[in-house]
């Protein structure tokens, strides 16, 4: 078996499994957020007629998409979540503490675990050698009750990455390039397994960026083996344990793709599809109105630090607004204490409450007609952050910071030097 099959096997009784087989798997965590939890509560109570969740320590609820509540409907919805959490005695309920996936990575996920979440970017946890995937509210309600769910064992695609990372190029540029090559549905139902020296060289922040966007090629899981970098991350977070798995000698992958980052340029996905990808040099000069640095894709301390390095001592263009939202309170505090937030604010940035912020548009940063947003988020679907006549461009933190200075899409290799 390959490592994906081995983790699924370990959670379904230990039998050998192969792609296409449907297995019932035991879950380590079931996560839902304020865009999906209330519907799951309705289904749990009204349709499944369930009384108790399987384990109040393994059900995680996060208010991140609409917090601080931006409408009466959002406030009512949050109160329904709090009421359910109280009734069930849930141990882990977060409001305004950060994006659900960042909180899961900082506080819960361990290597070898199997997790579902009612959010498509749940695949982020593959950065720690766990298997995690997004599902809908009905599946989550079933999992709350049963502690298990059915899954089809996926085919696995290995993506081996070598080369030395050029300056101002990172995991966001690589994953955008991969999605551009695979297309938006090119990895549908599959597990994407990233390995090779250029992946091993990445810190946890960048590994999370890589795993986060696997869903944008349609993938079910992302996976990066837990190594010493992962262990050091867990130790720093005060956690230990988990289980590491490795391929058997007969491990099979549907195919292997090879990438070399040595010659990779900063990448941009242009409207209105994530696979609409090209080098930043193809888009230089396109004027933008709003820039967003944040989200479960690129709202980590390391991302903020990259932007601060480019923006230090300078002012953003008068024609743009720059929104920065740390992905969690821990990141926010570290960025405050290190001076990164002060650098960003002095350059002209607005700082948001940790959460999904302008990736989702549930709390602000909404675009008007004909406006353009350049964002470190993971989706550029038409109308996702406001007007259906607006445009969204995706890039990494260096491109966003460089472009904030000029007011148009700019190559950080030119601006920052």
């Amino acid at each position: 078996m390959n490592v994906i099959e081995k983790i699924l096997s370990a959670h379904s009784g230990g039998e050998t499994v192969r792609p296409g087989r449907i297995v019932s798997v035991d879950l380590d965590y079931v996560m839902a957020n304020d865009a999906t939890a209330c519907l799951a509560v309705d289904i749990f109570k009204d349709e499944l007629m369930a009384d108790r969740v399987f384990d109040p320590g393994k059900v995680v609820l996060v208010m991140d998409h609409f917090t601080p509540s931006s409408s009466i409907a959002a406030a009512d919805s949050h109160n329904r979540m709090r009421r359910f959490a109280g009734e069930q005695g849930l141990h882990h309920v977060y409001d305004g503490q950060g994006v659900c996936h960042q909180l899961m990575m900082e506080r819960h996920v361990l290597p070898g675990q199997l997790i579902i979440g009612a959010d498509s970017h749940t695949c982020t946890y593959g950065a720690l050698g766990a298997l995690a995937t997004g599902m809908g509210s009905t599946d989550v309600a079933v999992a709350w009750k049963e502690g298990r769910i059915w899954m089809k064992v996926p085919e696995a695609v290995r993506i081996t990455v070598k080369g030395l990372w050029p300056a101002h190029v990172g995991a966001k540029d690589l994953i955008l390039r991969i999605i551009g090559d695979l297309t938006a549905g090119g990895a549908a139902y599959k597990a994407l397994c990233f390995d090779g020296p250029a992946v091993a060289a990445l810190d946890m922040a960048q590994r999370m960026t890589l795993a986060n966007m696997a869903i944008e090629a349609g993938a079910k899981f992302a996976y990066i083996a837990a190594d010493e970098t992962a262990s050091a991350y867990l130790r720093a977070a005060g956690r230990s344990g988990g289980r590491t798995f490795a391929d058997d000698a007969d491990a099979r992958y549907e195919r292997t793709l090879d990438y070399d980052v040595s010659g990779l340029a900063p990448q941009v996905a242009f409207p209105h599809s994530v696979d609409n990808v090209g080098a930043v040099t193809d888009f230089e000069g396109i004027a933008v109105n709003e820039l967003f640095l944040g989200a479960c894709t690129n709202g980590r301390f390391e991302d903020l630090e990259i932007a601060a390095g480019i923006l230090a001592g300078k002012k953003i263009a008068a024609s743009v607004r720059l929104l920065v939202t740390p992905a969690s309170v821990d990141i926010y505090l570290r960025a405050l204490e290190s001076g990164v937030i002060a650098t960003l604010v002095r350059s002209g940035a607005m700082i948001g409450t940790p959460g999904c912020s302008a990736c989702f548009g549930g709390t602000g940063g909404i675009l008007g007609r004909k406006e353009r947003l350049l964002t470190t988020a993971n989706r550029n679907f038409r109308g996702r952050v406001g007007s259906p006549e607006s445009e969204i461009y995706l890039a990494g933190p260096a491109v966003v910071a460089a472009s904030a200075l000029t007011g148009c899409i700019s190559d950080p290799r030119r601006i920052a030097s």
Partner: protein
Amino acid sequence: MIQGKSITFGNNIDTDQIIGAQHLILPSIAGMAPFAFEHHDNFTTRFTPGDILVAGENFGCGSSREQAPAVLKHRGVAAVVARSFARIFFRNAINLGLPLIVCAQAAEIGELAGITINGDRLCDETTGRQYGIEPLPPFIAEIVASGGIVPFLRRKRLSGLV
């Protein structure tokens, strides 16, 4: 057998297009349903309950929001025919009992065509063309035949494979 007229879409129809993020906070699917495909004029002007949505590759990509298939079902979409479906949307629709049909030639079907889906065949009554459709895996077909995952689980008395 499912019969209805077609409302057509292209490739990579994402769940933000099906139901916008700002509507997810509304307290009920009934409250969200009027906003289904609110920026797609063919849906807002031509759709009537019982119609069949016909699309290209990767229908339902993006967010895990189950509200997307739920509002389509609430509006009376009889089935969605596509060349392929995104994984989470597929699972959500099956769980809700919304029939999804995988048809390799879906892009050949025109707007407002009369469609009949019967067994493993799809007939475009407007052109007279017949197309094969992919059968669902037996376990998935059993969930659909039960009317969704909740009635399926009731039938299994919550003791079988979940």
